[in-house]
């Protein structure tokens, strides 16, 4: 029975294992290996080991600026999501409101409408003829429309909006999983609200903070559509560089090197996540 049960268990996981191996792990591995191939205008790539793609990527000021900008926007977006996501997740995890179900739905609902829909909404809001500028001019705060669209700020605002649910999920799980008696105990022992939060609630929610930040940082670093529409030509990020290199320049090895840098950033973050997470558990 035990043997048969183990076989059933393996059999049920076979489809997803085959799919992930063939369509996810193998292609991504191949794509990343290409970062050490030589670019050739004629054959697209020559499978010889070279470091020229990375040298170009890290050596040219143009590419370095894009890497720095991407990291900056990813960091700002992560901080923004954390700043907005934490109070929201805390509220959702602690509230006794009858509207709780609906409020949760409203957090998830924007996630479902897709990136294009939400980015378009921000274009309508932030454009020079947009709602924000209309209101500012109506109030007499500015006489000429502010240039918000096609700036880094616009990209960060839209990305925070799009990625906020990814921050709220793990934070909510971490906060809702806490024993409410701990906060009560801290209160009984004489700690004020601020101290209770800083010394009990916040440290206990660290896994959620790390998980959410890792997710948001990664997803921002790989964004293409939102930076393209909100930032225009002036605010190019790594994702757009990869898109252009593969779709118009057809320099796959260099595109792969760019992606490699992205993946390295992600791995570094995951490493931090597991080290801090482990450190806590032990």
């Amino acid at each position, binding site marked *: 029975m035990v043997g048969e049960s183990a076989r059933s268990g393996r059999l049920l996981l076979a489809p997803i294992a085959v799919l992930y191996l063939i369509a996810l792990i193998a292609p*991504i591995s*191949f794509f990343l290996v290409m970062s050490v191939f030589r670019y050739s205008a004629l054959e697209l790539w020559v499978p010889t080991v070279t470091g020229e793609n990375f040298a170009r990527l890290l050596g040219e000021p143009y590419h370095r600026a894009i890497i720095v900008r991407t990291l900056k926007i990813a960091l700002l977006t992560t901080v923004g999501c954390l700043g907005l996501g934490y109070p929201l997740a805390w509220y959702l995890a602690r509230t006794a409101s009858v509207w709780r179900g609906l409020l949760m739905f409203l957090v*998830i609902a924007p996630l479902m409408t*897709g990136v294009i829909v939400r980015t378009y*909404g921000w274009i309508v809001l932030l454009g020079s003829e947009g*709602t924000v500028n209309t209101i500012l001019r109506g109030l007499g705060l500015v006489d000429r429309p502010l240039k918000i669209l096609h700036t880094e700020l616009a990209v960060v605002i839209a990305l925070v909006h799009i990625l906020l649910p990814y921050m709220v999920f793990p934070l909510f799980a971490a906060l809702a*999983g806490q024993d409410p008696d701990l906060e009560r105990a801290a209160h009984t022992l004489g700690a004020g609200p601020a101290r209770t939060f800083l010394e009990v609630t916040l440290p206990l929610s660290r896994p959620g903070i790390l998980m959410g930040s890792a997710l948001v940082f990664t997803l921002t670093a790989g964004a293409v559509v939102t930076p393209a529409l909100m930032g225009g030509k002036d605010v190019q990020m790594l994702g757009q560089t990869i898109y252009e290199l593969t779709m118009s320049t057809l320099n796959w090895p260099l595109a792969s090197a760019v992606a490699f840098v992205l993946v390295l950033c992600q791995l570094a973050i995951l490493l931090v996540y597991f080290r801090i997470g482990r450190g806590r558990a032990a």
Partner: protein
Amino acid sequence: MPPDAPVAAAAIERQAPVVAPAAGRAGRLALGVAVTAIYVFLLAPVAIIVFSSFNPTEANTFPPTGFSLRWYAKFLDSAGFVAAFRFSLWLAVVAAVAATAIGFLTAHGLVRYWSRGRGILQSLAMLPMMVPHLLISISLLLALMVVPVPELAALIVGHVLICLPFAIACIVASLEGVDAQLELAALTLGASRLRALWEVVIPLVAPGLLSALLFTFMVSFGDVYIALFLSGPGRTTLPIEIFAYMQWESTPVVAAITSIQILLIIGLGLLIERLVGLRTIMRV
């Protein structure tokens, strides 16, 4: 996903939500204001789209200067948008069915047969959510250059990949609520494994399966990254058609299309909420 998620979920079920007694009155007021502001931030871009879709003028002005359905009419007149809308619907149905089927097998295997290694395996199953979709898509495009597979197949596979984590999350949540003894009883009474699955397990997790179908449909329908690299002439999804259009101009016809999409999504979302409750999925 957080390894302590099931524990978190169990804790929610066990205890009624408690407002921290430590939160003072001023603190609570500040929190209320902050949370309201965050909800305004979350919903404003969606609300503004719906408003501007009924705007009679070309410019995306707010407040609207009147009420008109001309942008909806223009959408229906545009062959490109209508074709893309249809293709997106078709693709989303195919991807949702495939992802739900594979997701059911995976979830069932994880919940019933892998008690020890489940944590790691379930995290691995969530892999497509952890990898930037851009990377999945571009790697599939590269694979197409090496292995001769129709591009449409790659597009479908890509959508199934990004849908799977959501399908598994829905079905795992649903399976956990089903007593494992029921399946065991069917087996003891002489049913084959397949029959036990078909006649006992599947009817019991039907709400989970349905919500998985709806959820993955939405994921596929809203995707841009997979389709960005893998769509082509005659295979353009709606978000890609809109993206291409928006790079040149931005008229409220986009608002009309996205309003229809929002309506569709809200309808499906409410349906899921009724079926299993979105909260069970959120704890993934």
